[in-house]
């Protein structure tokens, strides 16, 4: 079943790079790009249920924006790219994942594989379906 991945990063270049890496892993996936957390919250409250959210946020800001409640769906995975160094254990305890910047495509693929084990970590292609909010 095609996956829906939500990528949030205020920097367009980082968002597009992440989206491309995601599309290399799941060529038929739909990617939603958001610039900030309010857009993410709006997307989720409008009924969208992405399989994976990749957010450039710290654990504190995820909690501050009330995202914890919105991503409690068991099928929804969360990957934080802006987590503070000291939050690794707490993020793992919540069943979420974190990735330190700057990350390589290989690291992203590796983490995506950990988050969603059904992906093929060696596949490489060009993305062609990115929806920008």
């Amino acid at each position: 079943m095609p996956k829906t991945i939500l990528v949030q990063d205020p920097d367009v270049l980082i968002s597009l790079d992440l989206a491309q890496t995601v599309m290399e892993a799941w060529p038929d996936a739909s990617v939603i790009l958001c610039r900030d957390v309010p857009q993410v919250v709006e997307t989720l409250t409008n009924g969208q249920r992405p399989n994976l959210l990749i957010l450039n946020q710290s654990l504190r800001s995820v909690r501050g924006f009330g995202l914890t409640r919105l991503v409690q769906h068991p099928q929804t995975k969360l990957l934080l790219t802006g987590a503070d160094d000291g939050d690794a254990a707490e993020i793992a305890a919540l069943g979420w994942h974190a990735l330190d910047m700057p990350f390589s495509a290989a690291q992203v693929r590796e983490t995506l594989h950990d988050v969603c084990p059904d992906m093929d970590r060696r596949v490489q292609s060009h993305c062609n379906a990115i929806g920008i909010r």
Partner: protein
Amino acid sequence: MKQLRLWAVAERSPAYQIAFASLAIVTSVALRHYLDPALPPGFPFVTFFPAVILTGYFAGTKAGIAVASICGLVSWFWFLAPAGSFATSPQIILTLVFYLFIISTELLLLHTMRQALITLEHEKNRSDTLAQANKTMFHELQHRVSNNLQVVASLLKMQRRNVVDESARAALDAATARLQVVASIQRQLHNPKRQTTDMGQLMRELLPEVVNSSSQSDRIMLDFDVEPVVVTGDQATPLALIIVELVSNAVEHAARDTGKTHLLLTMRSRGDEAIIIVQDDGDGLPHDFVPEKSRSLGLRVALQFTEQLEGQLVFETINGTRATLTFPLGSEKR
């Protein structure tokens, strides 16, 4: 102890001060009355000194003065002969002057100590606020630097996707890998809790990523024999880049077509000198190998940084290739 200190510096309301002082007066007078038959003559103030000290400490100097004054009067009236009067005689006046002197000294010392504790508490709060601001600033700095490095890494990756030439792709991969090494070191060095960096620990975290990012990773076995090598902030970045270049070089040139190639990183600190050895069990160096004449960018980077560290980098063929770096462990020089 901390709680005692906090009690001493706490702001007390007038009601609290009056209640504490009254309790101290009633208790000390009652105790003095109770002990009166058992006490020999000459101890009229024995229960009042602790009352004044405790009140001065827990309820403030003003309450202490009130307790000292009332207890002095009570003692004069009841416990200085003749009892039941405010009689004066040279002996009584001398006794009261002594009482006044002792009690004033006690209260002055207590007041000075309380003021010192209050100043200390204010300074401590100010330091805590500054430390918190410092921590927040470092976090913010770290995030900003990481974000900027990620923008550069993303650009390189996007560029790589549009390049078909294999050598160009490899060059962009190498640039991305170097960027990540710099980022990892930056994260370690900008940790506000850290004054120096243990390179042994840093390499244990960093090198598996370097090896895994290589296309030869499944043919390399990386081992560590590292002792803590603590270097200054100035030394950490060049040293990490030298080690990463030596390991990348070994991965690139020593990996066999079949079977595993072993890589061993040894790190020792001997007095004021550090010794770093990168050893592989590959075919060894070419016979005409001269490091200074090499066209490898990685090797040139390693040699330049060795010079910066005022160290020596020696390449030998001993059961494969061995690169030995020695450099002085220094204090902050630059």
